[in-house]
């Protein structure tokens, strides 16, 4: 059974939803306090959505210095799957585990909506079980979701097929409609949409399950 450690920062608010979605798929979810100096014995780590440290200074700017982040960094360096969802994606970019930055939405409105995403690459621990071209309907819920990077970084992301999800209809001005990316090895993933909120018919969409299942399968990353 796959054990997933879900990091709880002061101000995170999606940790229980992630645990519930993981356990509905037969995995085991464990909440890990941000002050912990080490991770428990887990197969994957999720940095969930919310407002860690109130998004003060910049979203994720303070959370990246949390004690647990040293352990998360080592886990990632050893090839462990790490997925940052929404605020978690912001923490990963601030921590330098993923390139680029998340800025305020171009329309300056907080967006709470269901959007369509296109799977662009299956070369990541979150998309390995999907197929390129799959359209997934998954909610977004953010004010700072505008993915920004310089042209050199964008060129690298494209060449190395590290853009894993794109918005079909860019809601927030993200560079090249990027909704999610991964690192070189494909084991560290960041995405702004919330797959745990598209995990049952009751929630309006089950399209997030293919992503969560990929993570739980521990299948590794095809082609990398």
């Amino acid at each position: 059974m796959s054990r997933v450690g879900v990091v709880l920062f002061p101000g995170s608010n999606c940790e229980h939803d992630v645990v519930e979605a993981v356990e509905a798929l037969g995995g085991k979810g464990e909440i890990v306090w941000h002050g912990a100096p080490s991770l428990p014995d887990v197969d994957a780590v999720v940095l969930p959505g919310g407002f860690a440290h109130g998004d003060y200074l910049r979203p994720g700017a303070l959370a990246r210095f949390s004690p647990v982040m040293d352990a998360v960094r080592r886990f990632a360096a050893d090839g462990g799957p790490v997925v940052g969802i929404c605020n978690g994606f912001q923490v990963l970019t601030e921590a330098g585990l993923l390139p680029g930055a998340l800025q305020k939405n171009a329309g300056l409105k907080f967006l709470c909506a269901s959007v369509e995403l296109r799977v662009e690459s299956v070369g990541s621990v979150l998309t390995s079980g999907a197929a390129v071209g799959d359209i997934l309907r998954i909610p977004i819920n953010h004010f700072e979701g505008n993915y920004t990077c310089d042209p050199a970084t964008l060129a690298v992301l494209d060449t190395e097929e590290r853009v894993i999800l794109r918005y079909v209809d860019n809601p927030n001005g993200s560079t090249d409609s990027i909704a999610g990316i991964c690192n070189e090895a494909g084991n560290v993933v960041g995405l702004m949409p919330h797959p745990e909120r598209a995990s049952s018919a009751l929630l309006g969409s089950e399209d997030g399950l293919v992503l969560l299942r990929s993570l739980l399968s521990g299948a590794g990353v095809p082609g990398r």
Partner: protein
Amino acid sequence: MSTRFDVRVEVSLRPGIADPQGATIERALPALGFEGVDGVRVGKSIRFSVEAGDEPEARRRVEELCTRLLSNPVIEDTRFELTPA
């Protein structure tokens, strides 16, 4: 023997980075009766005091603080003023 310095850091978006807040303010100005204003950019000001042996050391500490925490160098620049308290 250490000296206390007062520091004021200004964090701003790097040139070329989109600033929707600045753009929105700029667009609103003519409707409010302010003509001839452009190039609006919004940043933040952070103030604090720091102890250091001398001014060069204080500057080094502030620079590190700026690049590691107070700004995100991917999208922001900083400038600061430092005066003995």
